[in-house]
């Protein structure tokens, strides 16, 4: 393994463990639901989502949530988690005495119960290994196991940049460093939930797609790309958005070997099978057990049809101020939603989104985002003759389809009265592409100036990590 990647992975692992140990239990979005899913798988009654009167969480988990004061503290800056050593010791004594049935009487419907099961099966392993320990020992083990996926995200971003920039180690380091050092990515990846695995699988899929386009299709890359896409779908249904880009890369790869027709057919069928096997297997299991196959996707479908004009108006108002003739969508408490969601929540909104830096810092984050975006566009224009258009289409397709899916769901949830859906972390599956953009901007520089630029980028990310960890420490423990 290249030394820069090894060193970066070491740094990211340490930061990931720090985040896993600093954030109080269940002070990350829906973490209690994700934990409940795993506990339901391991201790019973199986896949969660059982109808009422089954409670969403086991007696043990409810007692733990009360003990650490998690429900009161969530999104409430005035409340704190439990600080009393006495309360901690009391919980440990009570937890040790709980009968086994108090771990298996959950499994009802919760916000995560409609998710596909792959990540939860993965996190069931550390849960089971630590099952002799206290409730919170299991939670901590599960968090640390989730951090390992962040390392895959970093490696995927490194490999992707290697294909795009032709093994320019510095640009690879910047791309992977962005993916692994952005505090929000680390924060989300260090909690119990499928997002860490989702980011990792998307990063791998993006690398494999670009590899097929740049180097030609092979059995390993074709089956790898579609297989990773299939696995991503049974990790989180958001990953259906990856299918068009994956099929594009596959189709292009097969088109280029069209003269070897039998081989192309064999490769195509094998790749499609790699996609279909996990998805169909999950569908069969889910149907047999009466579980939703892809609740997020079916939940966003619209039996009554879509008001396209209204959808366009929503899209406009998400990114720009409303025009006088538009019906006002109150999307995020005033202002431009894209700023509140992509910039504020994308850069730094920890806990249940309530832990943020002082407001004046966010325009600076916006300026940095704008600078990188403009720098990337300008660079792409400058080197347009050398751009591999197929790679651009592949990466663009993955980005646009994810955004389209998110906006489709957000819009339909809003008009159905379900409240806003969108959150900044939902675009983190594209974190490797974000890293490419930063590296692309840096590629304006040459020689030692580029080294300095890379140092400033990684130094800035490390600074943000330090301040973010400090922010979270003071919010919950000071």
């Amino acid at each position, binding site marked *: 393994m290249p*030394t820069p990647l090894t*060193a970066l992975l070491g*740094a990211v692992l340490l930061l990931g463990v720090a985040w896993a140990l600093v954030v109080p239990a269940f002070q990350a979005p829906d973490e209690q639901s994700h934990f409940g899913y795993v506990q339901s798988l391991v201790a019973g009654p199986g896949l969660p989502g059982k109808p009422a009167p089954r409670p969403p969480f086991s007696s043990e988990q409810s007692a733990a949530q009360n003990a650490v004061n998690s429900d009161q503290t969530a999104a*409430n800056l005035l409340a704190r988690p439990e600080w*009393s050593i006495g309360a901690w010791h009391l919980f440990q004594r009570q937890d040790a005495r709980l009968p086994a049935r108090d771990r298996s009487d959950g499994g009802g419907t919760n916000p995560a119960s409609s998710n596909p099961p792959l990540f939860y099966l993965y996190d069931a392993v550390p849960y089971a290994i630590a099952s002799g320990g*206290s409730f919170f020992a299991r939670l901590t083990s599960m968090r640390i196991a989730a951090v390992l996926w962040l390392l895959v995200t970093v490696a995927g971003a490194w490999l992707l940049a290697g294909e795009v920039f032709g093994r320019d180690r510095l640009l690879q380091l910047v791309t992977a460093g962005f993916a692994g050092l952005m505090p929000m990515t680390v924060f989300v990846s260090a909690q119990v939930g499928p997002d860490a695995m989702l980011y990792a699988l998307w990063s791998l899929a993006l690398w494999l797609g670009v590899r097929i386009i740049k180097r030609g299709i092979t059995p390993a890359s074709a089956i790898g790309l579609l297989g990773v896409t299939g696995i991503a779908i049974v990790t989180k249904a958001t990953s259906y958005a990856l299918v068009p880009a994956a099929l594009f890369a596959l189709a292009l790869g097969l088109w280029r070997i069209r003269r070897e027709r039998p081989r192309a057919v064999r490769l195509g069928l094998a790749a499609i099978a790699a996609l279909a096997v996990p998805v169909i297997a999950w569908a069969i299991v889910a149907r047999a057990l009466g579980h939703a196959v892809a609740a997020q996707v079916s939940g966003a479908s619209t039996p009554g049809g879509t008001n396209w004009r209204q959808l366009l108006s929503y899209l406009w108002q998400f990114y720009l101020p409303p025009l006088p003739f538009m019906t006002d969508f109150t999307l995020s408490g005033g202002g431009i939603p894209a700023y509140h969601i992509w910039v504020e929540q994308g850069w730094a909104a920890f806990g249940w989104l309530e832990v943020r830096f002082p407001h004046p810092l966010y325009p600076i984050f916006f300026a940095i985002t704008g600078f990188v975006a403009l720098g990337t566009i300008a660079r792409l224009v400058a080197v347009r003759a050398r751009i591999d258009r197929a790679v651009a289409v592949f990466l663009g397709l993955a980005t646009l389809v994810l955004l389209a899916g998110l906006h489709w769901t957000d819009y339909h949830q809003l008009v159905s009265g379900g409240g806003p859906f969108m959150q900044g972390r939902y675009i983190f599956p594209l974190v490797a592409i974000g890293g490419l953009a930063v590296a692309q901007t840096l590629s304006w520089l040459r020689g030692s100036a580029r080294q300095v630029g890379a140092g400033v980028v990684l130094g800035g990310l*490390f*600074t943000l990590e330090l301040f973010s960890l400090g922010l979270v420490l003071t919010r919950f423990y000071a």
Partner: protein
Amino acid sequence: MLAFLAVALAAGAVLAIVGATERRTLAFTLGVPSYAAVATLKPGQTVCQEPIAIASGFDDVAFHVGTFARTGQPIEVSVLQATTRAPLGRGVLAAGYGDGARPLVAVGHVPAGGDADVCFRNAGTRRVALYGGPDVAARMSTAVLAGKPTSPASDLDLAFRVAHPRSTLALLPDMLQRAALFRGGWIGPWLYWLLLVVVLLAVPALIVRALRSTTDAEQ
């Protein structure tokens, strides 16, 4: 590499300055949000939150009080040793505060350790209400009105503050001790001190190593 080190060192320096200059008065809190008025006190009535483990010494008690849109009535605040009921601290909130106020009442210094009951007596002539939430936030403590738990069972929204603010840096040992609770049984504050060193030293060292390796590769 030098650029990284310059940025990282500057960040560390700024963090140290912020930590040394930022002042905090919170000693500890029960972590109870104010959902509703949980105890209405008629003149002369007392409500106590009991028992409260005194995690850190304090000088002031902050609470959330309603006046039913009238002028606020005087409230006596007492801190009593939980088992002996010996007084540990006492203060009075003068009349005249507004509805929904969050006053801070000085009770004298109460040292850390042991359990205490914190009581509020309506010393005025009209009713007042104390705010709080359901009896789940403070595990071992509950609000008791006229000798019985409030119905429904609830906790008062209380915070305990020190008269002399401490810097965030001075609070760091307490913060790390609090962070180490509700983790694995073997996890203690020592691990957080180790993590602090690792994040401040090992992480930047590894990033420097990564940057230096790319330079070597280019050369």
